[in-house]
């Protein structure tokens, strides 16, 4: 089985690329190559549907292309925080306005049942169940959860993206996980 957890992007030496990308298409193209896959993956984990995720990914990179000249940052870390902020905002905006999300969700995850190897006590948990539970969270909390567990970011990075303090992220995440546990137990018919 392919694990879904991914390590944070540990790259250095791309700061120059970020500066050059404001005026040079070739540099922007290299940034695109570096970030296409992580951003698409983030969108898939936020929207639960590949076609939608591709559309939102397109929208994110087109926004980057149009506005990078006005981007203030000078390091790759700045760029990373900026593009994930755009991604989180666009994914959340899409979720808020989408009335079809439930149907899309069911259609998207239906064929992707877990293989039953999840550790106890969640042995019967699968993607549809988990996503249903995640859907019960606020979009902002979904973003934090996705950045932490699917993108493998630390508190500082998440804080930069959602414009909050790292300590707040830690506390929020703790509460979100407890809420998610409750939702999952309800879904699985367990007792709290």
């Amino acid at each position, binding site marked *: *089985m*392919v*694990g*879904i*957890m991914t390590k944070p992007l540990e790259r250095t030496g791309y700061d120059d690329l970020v500066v050059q990308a404001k*005026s*040079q*298409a*070739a540099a*922007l*193209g290299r940034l*695109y*190559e570096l970030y*296409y*896959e992580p951003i*698409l*993956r983030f969108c*898939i*984990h936020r929207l639960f549907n*590949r*076609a939608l995720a*591709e*559309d939102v*990914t*397109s*929208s994110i*990179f*087109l926004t*980057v*292309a*149009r*506005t*990078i*000249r*006005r981007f203030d940052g000078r390091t790759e870390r700045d760029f990373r925080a900026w593009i994930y902020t755009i991604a989180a905002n666009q994914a959340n905006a899409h979720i808020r306005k989408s009335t079809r999300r439930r149907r899309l969700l069911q259609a998207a*995850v239906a064929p*992707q049942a*877990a*293989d039953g*190897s*999840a*550790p106890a006590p*969640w042995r019967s*948990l*699968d*993607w549809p169940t*988990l996503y249903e539970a995640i859907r019960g969270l606020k979009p902002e909390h979904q973003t934090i959860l996705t950045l*932490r*567990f*699917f993108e493998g970011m630390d508190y500082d990075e998440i804080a930069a993206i959602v414009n909050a303090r790292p300590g707040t992220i830690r506390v929020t*995440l*703790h509460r979100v*996980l*407890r809420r*998610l*546990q409750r939702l999952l137990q309800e879904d699985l018919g367990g007792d709290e």
Partner: protein
Amino acid sequence: MSENEREFRRLVNGLTIDAKPDPAHRQRLGQQMLQAFELAASSASWTPRWAAPLGKLSIAKLAVAAAVVVGAAAVLYQLRGPADVVAADLVKTRQAMQKMGWVHVVTTRGQEVETRWHNLAANRVFLTTAQGAVICWDNGSAQQQLVYNPRAKTLTVDSLPRRGFSGSGSVFTVLNSILAQRQQNAATVETYSDASQGRKLRVFKAEMKPTGDAEPAATRVVETIMVDPETGLLLAGSTDHLGSGGEVLARETFEVDYPRTGPAGVYDLGVPAATRIIDRTQQPIGTPTDIPTPAPTGE
């Protein structure tokens, strides 16, 4: 990391979802992004922040302006290839449609519904309206226009109208319009994938200047067309006429399919066989009513 987090991490590690990128989307988006970058550069009116204090000096202003222009030109030159990708795709769609014998288009404007059959080989178009009117523009061998009036129950045969493009090629008007404005850098075009009824679509969304047939108060027109990514054929689309505040002044939608055959004549579209025919093509030029008469002198 708290125990709570570790537990959740173990949980999601035990699950899997396909997040593998689609190379076609990756490549297409890369091209679109560079195109958007180019468009932003070509319309750039920004001044670098470092140049702001120098802005009071006219020479400095000129230097900054020159740098921006040169930079934009360089980017435009460098990205000429990606810029043409959208245009090339639209041309491919036009070529794919041209290979089809018939193009059937149903257009809806508010309560009005029009249906057209374009016979590309014969250069002939049939149009029917919800009220029962039938029109045929034969730009091929016959070079005439037939109009069936369901109220008068007459079929008028006339010469082709001098104004307006009524040939079978009018089915390409939307594509040609986008291409023409794109050529003049007057249209921004975004493309993305979508799906409808289990069918994959490629969508082109073009924001353009209003053309002659747009709503009078429209300041922008947004053409959205949906293309089958496999065949390249146009499948559906919409036209939004937008006012200065972004409000939709008028909207029309259309759906396209490609039947093997179509109507052979107006009688196939419901015109009764016994309809009275008025043949204006036989009328001699300069009838008595057209002859100017001298004004009375009062003598």
